[in-house]
């Protein structure tokens, strides 16, 4: 160990030099070319420029949730789900919800999952000339996609979910004690405390959710910014990848307050979706009303959305439903960015689109 410690000063200097020489362009994320085709308020809908003259699959609309951003699917060229899908001939679109301010505090999940997503689906159908649109929902975006497919099935050709929770109490079935701490923490908070938190801030602050995620694994967080970064000092490519990930992690918008209450209380605490008591737009969201094929992708080592919380979906769909699961040997965000996930998720989605069109 003494030998390793002796190299520390040199590594620190190398890291400082590497950081100083790096510019923002080298660590940009979401760089796959796309064009804005529609906007409404803060929402922006983009169509990615196809790599092939004619796309054979899709249209596929990527929907992220309100915690974090959709750029996770296009973090860098080497691990971009978007680029993999474009290369497979998929017509890919992405919805950007924008950045919530206090003026958005009364927007609820109906505004996003029903009206907002519905308007985007209509635009994608018009732009592509397709009758039906397939949704790829990421995390909370998957909940939006699933609910939308249950309530407005006519225009939805399929729903692919990635790292999406459905049963928010199923963490109890995960044997790994490091999985599901978020579920435990949220169930451990009095309901009134959550309501008062949202009332006081208007929204669920992005800074707070970021801090919560960091504190789930405090030792790992600390090591990432100390010994971890020193290991990257002499590898510019890995350092750039690390910084892109950090750029995505830091870009954490506030979560509109009314929707946050439904998410934290209605789903995390009361588990209404899995128990058939969740309502949007005054209507009951019944997962057994989903008619389209469903692909469910989850990380086997996901400590934020424990696997049982995702795989609980199967039995909730209609019997004999076209339902397929893909287990990825990775953590939460690792489903999109880890080396083990590359070559799994993109081909799985493209293959599913090809089979179900």
């Amino acid at each position, binding site marked *: 160990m003494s030998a390793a410690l002796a190299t520390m000063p040199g590594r620190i200097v190398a890291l400082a030099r590497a950081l100083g020489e790096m510019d923002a362009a080298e660590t940009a994320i979401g760089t796959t070319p796309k064009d804005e085709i529609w906007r409404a308020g803060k929402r922006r809908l983009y169509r990615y420029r196809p790599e092939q003259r004619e796309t054979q699959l899709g249209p596929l609309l990527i929907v992220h949730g309100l915690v974090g951003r959709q750029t996770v699917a296009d973090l860098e060229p080497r691990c971009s789900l978007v680029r993999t899908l474009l290369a497979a001939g998929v017509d890919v679109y992405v919805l950007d919800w924008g950045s919530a301010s206090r003026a958005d505090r009364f927007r609820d999940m*109906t*505004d996003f999952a029903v009206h907002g997503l519905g308007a985007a689906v209509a635009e994608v159908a018009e732009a592509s000339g397709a009758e039906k649109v397939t949704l790829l929902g990421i995390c909370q975006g998957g909940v939006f996609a699933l609910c939308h497919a249950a309530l407005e099935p006519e225009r939805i050709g399929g729903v692919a979910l990635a790292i999406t929770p459905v049963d928010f109490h199923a963490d109890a079935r995960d044997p790994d004690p*490091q999985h599901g701490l978020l579920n435990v923490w949220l169930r451990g908070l009095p309901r009134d405390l959550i309501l008062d938190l949202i009332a006081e801030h208007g929204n669920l602050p992005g800074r707070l959710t970021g801090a919560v995620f960091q504190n789930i694994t405090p030792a790992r967080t600390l090591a990432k910014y100390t010994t971890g970064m020193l290991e990257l000092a002499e590898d510019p490519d890995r350092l750039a990848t690390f910084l892109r990930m950090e750029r995505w992690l830091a870009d954490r918008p506030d979560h509109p307050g*009314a929707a946050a209450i439904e998410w934290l209380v209605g789903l995390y605490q009361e588990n209404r979706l899995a128990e058939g008591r969740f309502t949007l737009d005054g209507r009951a969201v019944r997962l057994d009303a989903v008619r389209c094929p469903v692909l469910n992708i989850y990380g086997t080592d996901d400590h934020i959305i424990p696997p049982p919380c995702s795989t609980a979906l199967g039995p909730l769909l209609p019997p004999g439903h076209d339902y397929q699961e893909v287990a990825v040997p990775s953590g939460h965000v690792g489903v999109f960015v880890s080396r083990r996930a590359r070559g799994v998720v993109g081909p799985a989605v493209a293959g599913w689109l090809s089979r179900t069109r």
Partner: protein
Amino acid sequence: MSEGSGPEAEALRLWLEAQAEALSGAARSAGWERAEGLFRAWCRLLEGFGPTAASTAAPFDPSEWLKPADQYGMGLLAGWLGGGAGATGDGGASGEPTVEWRDYLTALERHRAITGAAWLAAFRAFAEESGRAERDAKRLEREPPDWPALVALWQEIADREFAAVQRSDDYLSAQATLMRAALDARARARAQVEAMAEALGLPTRAELDDLTAEVAELRRALARLGERLP
């Protein structure tokens, strides 16, 4: 590492023992309870002498003892907030911390004590396991664990230790108490600011929220109308 010989092992061992004693549940709780009781008694006694007299009870306040004056920049934060509207609720004029601010500091220190105990337990376990690995390597005439192996070992042990603590009732209770105290302190400061704004005829947060609620309803009505159009 703490089981080896040499001055650094001795220092590490003594530091671990001192921290463990300071943070151990029974010792800390009994001392803390006595200190809090004394502090409350002094506050009650001094209330009769007017609002400013309560500050003389500050030396008996256990949250004052454990306030991390210079740790992790908390001293700077505590000083800024301690002298500003967040602590006093009146722009710092009286220099008196509000009850909410005091409760927040108390809750913060309780939370830190629990997480501090988890760090110590992790350090202890790491010292034992890494020491064992080094002794085994020496006995078998192999290379001792290298830096990446030790870092990985530390992370595995610490994450495991924290996962256990972060599921405990003590931690969940301390976390909820801290969140509530922080919210109350913030709400108290905001109420003071809003009262001032209202007196000066400036828009308040509550008025803007009312307007926002109306706009949200109008948006929804517009969206529903749009969906009905051909």
